[in-house]
């Protein structure tokens, strides 16, 4: 089991990168009036080559030499444990969209966790990836587009670590300003 929702997001991002995606979008929506937390991770990769039911089977994997694929099934378990639903469909970006909706106040919902470190770790190791992040809490929102952050630096300065530090700071400030529920 992954102890934070942000680690599930990291796992979905790693899946998308391994599938060849160059654009990944992460959207988190917190609707306090409806008591709903939604997480969507979309990419421009090749999409699903098997039915949804097969993709979330813990004994299905696309990796050679392995017999289990636990990432999606663990996330589905976590989401369904909170009375929510995990759906997979085609993204407007051209690849896969994984969407999870869960009850925000459910006692079994895992905390969002350290989202800033999670996304910074992706940027740090994939400096050329176009990662688009958006978080909405009721009517307020904050977004970070890594390609725009990257453009603030000259080619010599564009190392993963430098961009990651700025992305981390922007996400952290946004989370604090929006007073996101843990």
């Amino acid at each position, binding site marked *: *089991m*992954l102890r934070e929702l942000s*680690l599930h997001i*990291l*796992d979905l991002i*790693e899946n998308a*990168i*391994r599938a060849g995606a160059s654009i990944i979008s992460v959207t988190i929506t917190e609707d306090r009036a409806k008591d709903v937390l939604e997480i969507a991770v979309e990419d421009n990769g090749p999409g699903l080559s098997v039915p949804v039911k097969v993709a979330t089977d813990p004994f299905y994997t696309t*990796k050679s*030499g*392995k017999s289990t694929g*636990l*990432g999606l099934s*663990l996330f589905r378990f976590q989401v369904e444990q909170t009375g929510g639903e995990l759906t997979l469909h085609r993204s407007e970006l051209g690849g896969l969209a994984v969407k999870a909706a869960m009850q925000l106040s459910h006692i079994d919902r895992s905390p969002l966790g*350290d989202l800033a*470190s*999670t996304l*910074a*770790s*992706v940027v*740090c*190791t*994939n400096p050329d990836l176009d990662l688009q992040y958006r978080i909405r809490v009721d009517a307020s929102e904050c977004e970070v587009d890594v390609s725009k952050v990257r453009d603030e630096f000259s*080619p*010599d300065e564009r*190392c*993963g*670590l430098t961009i*990651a530090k700025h992305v981390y700071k922007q996400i952290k400030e946004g989370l604090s300003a929006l007073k996101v529920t843990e």
Partner: protein
Amino acid sequence: MAKKIKSLKELQELKSRVKADIDLRSGPKETQITVHMGTCGIAAGARDILTSLTAELSKASIDNVTLRQSGCIGLCDQEPMFSLSDRSGATFLYVRLDNNKVHEIVQDHLLGGNPVTSYLSKE
């Protein structure tokens, strides 16, 4: 005042010096660390290891390291782990990591040039 170029040979020497300088800045770094981030690695703490690693590199002012991520390599029981390819060209697989081990590896291997053999995979 800048030195005047008086021959084709001097121009070619200048070209190779500038090219070497550009390669140094934009080419591959001499040390590469790949953090393994399959579901097993993430569950075992790979993100925190990467965060700890970037903090240790910044603290030690080491900037000649390229950080990468990859998936599971089939040694799930030894996660979290990273592979380190150093300037000798050799690759070292450090396993069952925690923040203290990351600190030691940065100090002893990256700064001191001595691999920390007790943290290497025995496989």
